[in-house]
Structure formats: structure tokens, C-alpha cells
């Protein structure tokens, strides 16, 4: 069941100050609060769910590889000045831009706004997964939160969402 307590979370608990006109800062602040309330206070204590960082780690790995390739190219070019380093440079530049492409695809199609994933261990080998994702369009004030539950045994997905203006979460 979707915990309705999310609606009434009180931001003044931590007295967070954010720039309300900065869309991404607002979204991040609300995402953090959702995670704090639902995961630390509710899901973890009552149901003992474990947070899973696989998605975030995937993004970190792709970025790490891209930066690593760039640093390698820099180092190689420093040790062997330009005309000799040409083939390595071609390889590094194309690899870097391919990594950028993979990162964009990953963020847009695999992550899709998901910011928290919890795994509910069920005793048997099949785990159920809770996913929370959110969308906030660029100059829009409607914050859309989607909570999905993927059952481990039947692999079915149940979703519920609510859409509210961000003004409800902030005291201006």
C-alpha cells in the first residue's frame, strides 16, 4: 500500500532552504525527502527492506570509464608528442563519444527518473522490488511521483502515482 504519510511530510523538520525557482534543486530536495521518509523511517524499520544502488552505480561506472579514457589520452599524448600518438588519440576520442552516447541512452531509457530502489527479501530466492521515480517538467510546478512494486514470484508490476504542485511541499 502506498504510504499516505508522504503527503504530510514536514520539510520544516530539517529547515531545508532551497531556491524555489530552481526546478532541479526543488526536484532533488523532494526526492531526498521522499527517500528519507519512506525508506529510512518507514520501509526499513517496519519491513526491513534493503536499498539497492545498482542503477546509480551503473551511471557512475559509465562516467568513470569515460573520464578514465580521457585521462589516458591526455597522459599518452604528453608522453609521446602529437604525430606518434595519433592512432591512440583517434581511439580515445571515438571511445569517449561512444561512452557519452551510452550514458545518454542509459539515463533516458533505463533510469527514467528512478531515484530509489528497495529490495524486499522474501525468505525464498525471489525478491520483490520497490521503485520510486519522479518527474518534474522544466517550467512546470506539478511534481509527479510514481511508486512501482514488482513482485518477485509473478514478475508483475503494480504502479501507483500521484501528481501535486510543488507548492504543497514547501512553505514559502
Amino acid at each position, binding site marked *: 500500500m502506498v504510504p499516505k504519510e508522504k503527503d504530510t511530510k514536514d520539510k520544516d523538520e530539517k529547515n531545508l*532552504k*532551497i531556491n524555489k525557482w530552481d526546478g532541479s534543486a526543488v526536484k532533488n530536495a523532494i526526492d531526498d525527502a521522499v527517500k528519507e521518509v519512506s525508506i529510512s523511517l518507514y520501509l526499513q524499520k517496519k519491513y526491513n527492506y534493503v536499498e539497492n544502488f545498482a542503477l546509480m552505480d551503473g551511471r557512475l561506472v559509465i*562516467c568513470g570509464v569515460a573520464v578514465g579514457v580521457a585521462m589516458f589520452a591526455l597522459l599518452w599524448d604528453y608522453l609521446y608528442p602529437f604525430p606518434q600518438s595519433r592512432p591512440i*588519440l583517434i581511439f580515445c*576520442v571515438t571511445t569517449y563519444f561512444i561512452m557519452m552516447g551510452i550514458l545518454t541512452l542509459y539515463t533516458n531509457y533505463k533510469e527514467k527518473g528512478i531515484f530509489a530502489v528497495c529490495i524486499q527479501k522474501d525468505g525464498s530466492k525471489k525478491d520483490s522490488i520497490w521503485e520510486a521515480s519522479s518527474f518534474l517538467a522544466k517550467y512546470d510546478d506539478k511534481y509527479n511521483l510514481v511508486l512501482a512494486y514488482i513482485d518477485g514470484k509473478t514478475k508483475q508490476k503494480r504502479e501507483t502515482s500521484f501528481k501535486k504542485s510543488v507548492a504543497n511541499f514547501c512553505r514559502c
Partner: protein
Amino acid sequence: MELVNLFDDVKRMNKRQFLYQMLSFGMIVSSALMIWKGLMVVTGSESPIVVVLSGSMEPAFHRGDLLFLTNYPEEPVRVGEIVVFKVEGRDIPIVHRVLKLHEKNNGTIKFLTKGDNNSVDDRGLYAPGQLWLTKRDVVGRARGFLPYVGMVTILMNEYPKFKYAVLACLGFYVLIHRE
């Protein structure tokens, strides 16, 4: 914007998000680096974009113009072309025109340059004892230019504190602001 608010964002980040901020910064730096290296490969020159530093090529190029260079081995240097070269032992590229050229059958060349606005040729600028330039000294041949854009680079080189201040502010902002 109060300074305290900037650090609030950072304090709220956990380890992973902080690592992601550092990587985002790294990616911006890497993107610039990769574009520069890509340009180097495409044009074949070790410095595909240079800034004209002196007025020795007026009225063709003025101080602060940005030049695009290429350095393809199939296109040999010819008299009358504007080349950018580096004298051995000195780091500053010089943009002048080719005055005289000697070429052997196997393709080795030696040439003499002079700035349009100078009254003497460049022999005074070459290394002691050097009378001619060779293909090795060439950084590239000028292919196109943008006026005035390079003034920023000249300013940053003459006032290095300004450059460090700008870079520090940019880096700070990227690290603190969450995407």
C-alpha cells in the same frame, strides 16, 4: 544567494551523489579535452587553433585574432602562404608569410619567413646559427580566422590571476550545484 545555501546542497549529498558530482566535473573537463584532441587529429596539427599575439601581420591579421590551422603532409608549403611555426627552444608560435623556399627532389624543404608589417625577414628570430626553417618547425598553415575572439586568451595570459579566478569560480559552481 547566501553562501550557506550553497553548502547545504553538498551536506545533503550522500557518498554516491558526491562521487557523481566529481565525475560530472571530470566529464566537463574531459569533453573539452576530447574535442581539442579530436581537432588535433582531424587537422593534423599539434595546435589547431592559435591566437595572433603581435601586430606583425597587419593589415591581414591583428592582435587578438583567432586562426584555424591545418597541417596535412600531402599539401606542401609554398611561397606566399601564411604559416605558423615554432622556433626551436621557444614555445611561442609565430604567424608570418613564406618569402623564399628551397625544395629537394625527395620533398625536404627549407624556407624563409617575414611578417607583412616587419621591415626585415625573420632571421633575427630564428635560433642562433639557423638561417632556414624546415618542415619540422611548422605547426600549420592558416586556413581561416575569427577576428577579436582571441583577445580573451591574451587577457588571461597577461593577467594570470584573472584566469585562475575564473577557473576556480566555474569549478566551484559545477561541484556544488546538483544536476
